[in-house]
């Protein structure tokens, strides 16, 4: 393990409830994952069962709540998506997984009335076979530092009062009532907070640049256009704790002297749009947003805008164009948006997660924030852990945590295609989405931080972390990302528009056996040219997946080029259909299954395939019980 003297681990989840009355709470996860697995049915059944049990369901937490009161609520994403629907019982500290409507009666009878645990619904760690009662002894949660995500899994996202009861809007009030704009900027600068959207620019410095502008009109925009395929952290925060985003906007607006804010949400996230709109309306009703913010006489408006499906709009200047009703094309910087942004006015654009961190920094102080993570990358970062890993979901860890900790300990190790844990088998992690790169076995002990990742050709990006096993072809993955960026290139810069197209074609050549000795070098040259010749982050980072796989998996590329072979069998064009003579008993099933008559052979003698006639449909392999057919 590399030395990380600055790494301090925060207490785990569940410590925030102490200011609240100790009434029993049943919290059902209503994140996208759990909803898809039937969480709403479970919720309805809870309502019926609790009503029939003689317990009182209370709608709001009150200090005078009695013993028989149960607060039943929905929360945002609790992170452990793979095991949903999730039900937590607080303060008992129980986490039930994979809860079905039919399990509800038992939870009510045994846990709520009897005070006991329903053993069969607890999570069992597949590697240690240990049963975990709650989040404290569950390795998925216990090894995380859930700073931003904590409240996502606890609060009812549609209840502004619950948020306020948890101290919500306290930081914003402090910012408006007892802090000067320069003080706020200074606090954020001291905390060392860096933008969580990918670039990692110091937030305090960005704010200061907008603060010093002399303009009556300034804007703050929350960037919720999370277009990176394989990432859903911002979605979870907007869905699970929308008020923290609004509170962050309030603080940012106060810091730079803005009176108008806007939340730009991706169109593919309808629930996030709905929750953000509702949260804005609730905050207006409570007098938090409006013409007299916290009685200061200052006015602040907030609106929610739905994106229309363009990845490039995550780039600041493109997003501004989109808000102005134009095609989302980036423009050159300078002028920076902090000087001249939306409608030519000073504008700050912050990522959802950045804003959520701002609230916490004002609450706990910059020193505490700085004490977590590494020197140059303080604080925590959420990652969307997906792919071939046992525990998929949302994780939050301090910067400086190693990949091994995330994949092996929190993620529970690598799995096969069917989702079963396998020993070894780790091939790579794709970090940062289409702008990021691949990390290999050699990087498992690298502490994750902005600089350390950049040094190895990857980036933190928005935080997508896709684990891949040995059966994944790296050329295929590079092709997948290139296809994405090529499609999403706005077309303004020639090198990005045409270069990504050519890179995609070259990757196609490699995958289909047309590549020559020059192809790989040409790809590297072209990739570097696209990086240099593009205006915005999309083009500058588009070649990263190709360059980083070429760097770390060159041998695999060379196998494709020189041996016309794909070791994973994913590149179909390179497959050579073959019947393994030692396995074939000559039963003739494959001959009947073949639609083109490509298979011949005498009965009880090994058969053979004519590669000229074979169309690689796979019918023979599916029919053969002896698994004698390979390469189709």
């Amino acid at each position, binding site marked *: 393990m590399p030395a990380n003297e600055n790494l301090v681990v925060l207490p785990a989840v569940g410590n925030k409830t102490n200011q609240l009355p100790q009434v029993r709470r049943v919290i059902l996860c209503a994140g996208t994952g759990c909803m*898809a697995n039937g969480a709403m049915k479970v919720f309805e059944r809870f309502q019926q069962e609790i009503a029939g049990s003689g317990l009182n369901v209370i709608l709001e937490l009150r200090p005078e709540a009695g013993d028989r009161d149960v607060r039943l609520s929905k929360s945002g994403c609790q992170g452990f998506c793979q095991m949903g629907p999730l039900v937590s019982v607080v303060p008992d500290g129980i986490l039930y997984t994979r809860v079905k409507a039919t399990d509800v009666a038992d939870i009510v009878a045994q846990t709520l009335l009897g005070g006991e645990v329903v053993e069969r619904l607890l999570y069992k760690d597949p590697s240690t076979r240990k049963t975990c009662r709650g989040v404290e002894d569950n390795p998925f949660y216990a090894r995380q530092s859930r700073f931003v995500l904590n409240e996502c899994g606890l609060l009812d996202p549609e209840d502004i009062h619950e948020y306020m009861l948890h101290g919500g809007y306290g930081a914003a009030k402090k910012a408006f009532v007892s802090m000067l704009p320069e003080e706020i900027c200074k606090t954020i600068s001291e905390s060392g907070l860096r933008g969580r959207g990918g670039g990692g620019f110091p937030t305090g410095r960005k704010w200061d640049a907008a603060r010093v502008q002399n303009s009556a009109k300034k804007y703050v925009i929350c960037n919720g256009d999370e277009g990176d395929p*394989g990432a*859903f952290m911002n979605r979870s925060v907007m869905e699970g704790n929308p008020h923290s985003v609004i509170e962050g906007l309030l603080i940012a607006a106060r810091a730079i002297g803005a009176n108008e804010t806007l939340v730009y949400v991706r169109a593919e996230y309808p629930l996030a749009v709905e929750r953000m709109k509702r949260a804005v309306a609730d905050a207006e009703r409570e007098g938090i947003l409006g013409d007299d913010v916290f009685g200061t006489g200052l006015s602040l408006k907030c609106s929610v805008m739905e994106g*229309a499906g363009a990845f490039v709009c995550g780039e600041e200047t493109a997003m501004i164009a989109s808000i102005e009703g134009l095609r989302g094309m980036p423009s050159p910087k300078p002028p920076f948006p902090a000087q001249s942004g939306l409608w030519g006015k000073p504008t700050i654009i912050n990522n959802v997660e950045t804003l959520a961190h701002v609230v916490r920094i004002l609450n706990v102080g910059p020193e505490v924030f700085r004490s977590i993570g590494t020197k140059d990358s303080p604080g925590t970062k959420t990652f969307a852990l997906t792919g071939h890993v046992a525990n998929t979901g949302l994780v939050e860890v301090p910067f400086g945590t190693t990949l091994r900790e995330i994949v092996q300990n929190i993620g529970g190790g690598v799995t096969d295609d069917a989702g079963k844990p396998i020993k070894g088998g780790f091939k790579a992690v794709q970090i940062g989405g289409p702008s990021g790169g691949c990390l290999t076995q050699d990087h498992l002990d690298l502490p994750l931080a902005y600089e350390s990742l950049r040094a190895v050709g990857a980036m933190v990006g928005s935080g997508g972390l896709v684990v891949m096993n040995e059966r994944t072809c790296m050329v295929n993955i590079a092709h997948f990302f290139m296809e994405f960026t090529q499609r999403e290139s706005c077309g303004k810069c020639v090198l990005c528009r045409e270069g990504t197209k050519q890179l995609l074609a070259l990757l196609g050549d490699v995958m289909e056996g047309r590549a020559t000795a020059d192809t790989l070098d040409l790809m590297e040259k072209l990739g570097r040219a696209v990086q240099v010749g593009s205006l915005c982050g999309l083009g500058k980072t588009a070649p990263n997946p190709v360059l980083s796989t070429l760097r770390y998996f060159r041998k695999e590329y060379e196998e494709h080029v020189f041996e016309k072979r794909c070791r994973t069998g994913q590149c179909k064009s390179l497959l050579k259909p073959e019947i393994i003579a030692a396995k074939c008993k000559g039963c003739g099933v494959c001959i009947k299954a073949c639609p083109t008559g490509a298979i011949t052979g005498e009965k009880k003698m090994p058969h053979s395939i004519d590669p000229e006639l074979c169309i690689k449909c796979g019918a023979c392999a599916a029919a053969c019980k002896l698994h004698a057919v390979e390469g189709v």
Partner: protein
Amino acid sequence: MASAPVAIDSAMKFEKVCDILARHQYRPSGLIPILQAVQHEYQYLPEEILTYVATALDVPPARVYGVATFYAHFALEPKGKHVIRICDGTACHVKQSLPVLNALHQKLGTSEKQKTSPDMMFTVETVACLGACGLAPVVVIDEQVYGQITPERAIALVNEIKLQESTQSHVSEMTAAQAVNGGSNAC
């Protein structure tokens, strides 16, 4: 007489567009929300409405067309009754979302280019990421999310919808027939 309903229909069309434009105060900066509202109303962006919007906002039609074609969310052709969206984000991709897409294309007679089935019943499209990566691979059918999907399950879901459709159309044919029989006096 056959032209009368069409005239009424198109008048209704523009009335709704006028409502939408009024709600956004005829501001060209509101073009994207305006087009979103139009698409919400008609399921796609009909060409004559795009021209109308351009005239009403006093901007060149090229700008409206440019915006409508730039963003993936806007559709210039009508979609099928049921929209099936297959996520091809990174997590879904590495967990084999392409076989699901191919199975659906084969089942419904659709393709990469021809996204809507000939009977206008289904549209099959891929999206970059639905943000439900924990459940990969994911398919969304008419806003309902289905996780850990396999080609077989996808086909089963389509069959279910087809079955519902056929019973529904049977019922509606029956009610239509009843209405004709029962309502003959009213004519």
